[in-house]
């Protein structure tokens, strides 16, 4: 593991990208040198609130993916394993994306040799629809005028078309039920250390990206991009490394506090009561990869005639299958038509499991979750 500060040598990318455009430059290098077939990154579709995963095969199209989007709570692990399994791809990944990718690599659903992961440090994402409402309520601005947004120093900052900026403390927003998604609020993995490199602005000087190189593949990427003349790097000073560590520490501490507050609030039975067994949570879950072979599709678990459905089998089986591998990406919350806090329930169990075994899904180095190891030990 080593640290490096980087910025783009390409003027256009430098201007369009965030923090010197290092990420876009590395992606451009990977595409131009044909190291990968394509890049899966987020780009805005209709407006800044509408970030959707875009597969780019031409480095000229990369420009539209430049910049960071906080209103794009997407999951790409699922897309890679479903549709890009046999391609060499580079992806940009938030910590939860990376955790999902890692869990899928363990399950042989993603080929580790085929995927280049550029990790992005993440302080959280904001749901687009609620985010617009929040800007309408807490900022003196029209949500449509916002050209970019940023989370920095505990504030959610929006930049308007006329160049002015407005900031509100995230803490205040979250007290009112807005702000980041609830799973992001309690997320304690802020830097994707399983990715080849982890990029971010924490600790970096203006116009530079702070990169943590996690493995050899990551080192090759940086060296290659430098050699291709698209990336400029320098070594960070010690205070920068310390500063980054401090930011991460504060964020994790805050997350732990929120966890303690949030876990006791959920009342599972009350929430399952609304379940309509639409299987949206299962279908969107990056860890649930069995699809038509899912045990819940077996005739003995189908209760179609049963309205209302009994959640004991559906949720119970899902809990027993993957709750210990829950990466807390919050996709299940996002897609649940009944607003059941699914990820909170699953994450709570993951934490319990962690306390018992020390296994953190998508972060721990153990190849198999202890639940499935052949070791002759009891919990």
């Amino acid at each position, binding site marked *: 593991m080593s640290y490096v500060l980087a910025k783009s040598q390409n003027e256009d990318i430098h201007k369009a990208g965030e923090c010197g455009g290092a990420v876009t430059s590395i992606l451009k290098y990977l595409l131009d040198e044909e190291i990968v077939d394509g890049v899966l990154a987020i780009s805005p579709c209709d407006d800044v609130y509408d970030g959707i995963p875009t597969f780019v095969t031409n480095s000229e199209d990369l420009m539209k993916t430049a910049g960071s989007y906080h209103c794009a709570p997407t999951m790409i692990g699922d897309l890679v394993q479903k549709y890009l399994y046999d391609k060499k791809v580079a992806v940009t990944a938030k910590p939860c994306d990376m955790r999902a990718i890692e869990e899928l690599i363990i399950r042989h659903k993603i080929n580790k040799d085929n995927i280049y992961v550029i990790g992005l440090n993440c302080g959280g994402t904001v749901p687009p629809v609620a985010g617009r409402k929040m800007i309408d309520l807490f900022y003196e601005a029209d949500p449509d005028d916002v050209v970019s947004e940023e989370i920095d120093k505990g504030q959610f900052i929006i930049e308007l078309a006329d160049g002015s900026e407005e900031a509100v403390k995230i803490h205040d927003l979250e007290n009112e039920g807005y702000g980041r998604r609830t799973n992001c609020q309690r997320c304690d993995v802020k830097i994707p250390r399983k990715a080849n490199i982890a990029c971010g602005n924490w600790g970096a000087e203006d116009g530079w990206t702070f990169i943590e190189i996690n493995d050899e593949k990551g080192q090759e990427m940086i060296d290659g991009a430098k050699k291709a003349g698209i990336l400029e790097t320098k070594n960070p000073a010690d205070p920068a490394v310390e500063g980054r560590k401090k930011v991460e520490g504060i964020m994790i501490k805050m997350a732990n506090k929120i966890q303690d507050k949030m876990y006791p609030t959920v009342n599972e039975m009350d929430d399952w009561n609304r379940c309509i067994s639409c299987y949206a949570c299962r279908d969107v879950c990056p860890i649930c990869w069995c699809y038509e072979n899912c045990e819940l599709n077996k005739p003995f678990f189908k209760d179609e005639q049963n309205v209302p459905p009994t959640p004991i089998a559906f*949720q119970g089986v899902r809990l027993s299958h993957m709750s210990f591998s829950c990466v807390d990406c919050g996709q299940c919350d996002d897609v649940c038509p009944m607003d059941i806090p699914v990820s909170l329930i699953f994450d709570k169990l993951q934490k319990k499991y962690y306390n018992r075994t020390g296994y953190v899904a998508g972060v721990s180095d153990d190849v198999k979750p202890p*639940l499935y190891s052949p070791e002759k030990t009891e919990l």
Partner: protein
Amino acid sequence: MADDLKIVGLLCNWCCYGGADTAGTARMQYPSNVRIIRVMCSGRISPSMIFKAFQEGADGVFVGGCHIGDCHYDAGNYKWSRRSNMNGFQLPKVKNSKQPWKNSIKLFQS
């Protein structure tokens, strides 16, 4: 034990099921509200089977496996002991409040 409780017993072929069988031939009584299902090893039981039992209206599930260290298949009972731990976490999350049943998942060792 109350007579109206329905208990599903998942018993390992090599010890607990053998024990129940021997008890039967020796005319020893055991509660009639235990419905016994023979499995080849407690390690063969998946958590889904427990949930299925509860979905079908069981009030409790009893799992009988070998002594730790005595598994006929080397380590099956260790596997179930770890799984049962997880099951213990999960069950209170899905039990139907309108249909009270005892959270009686425990690893009984014969």
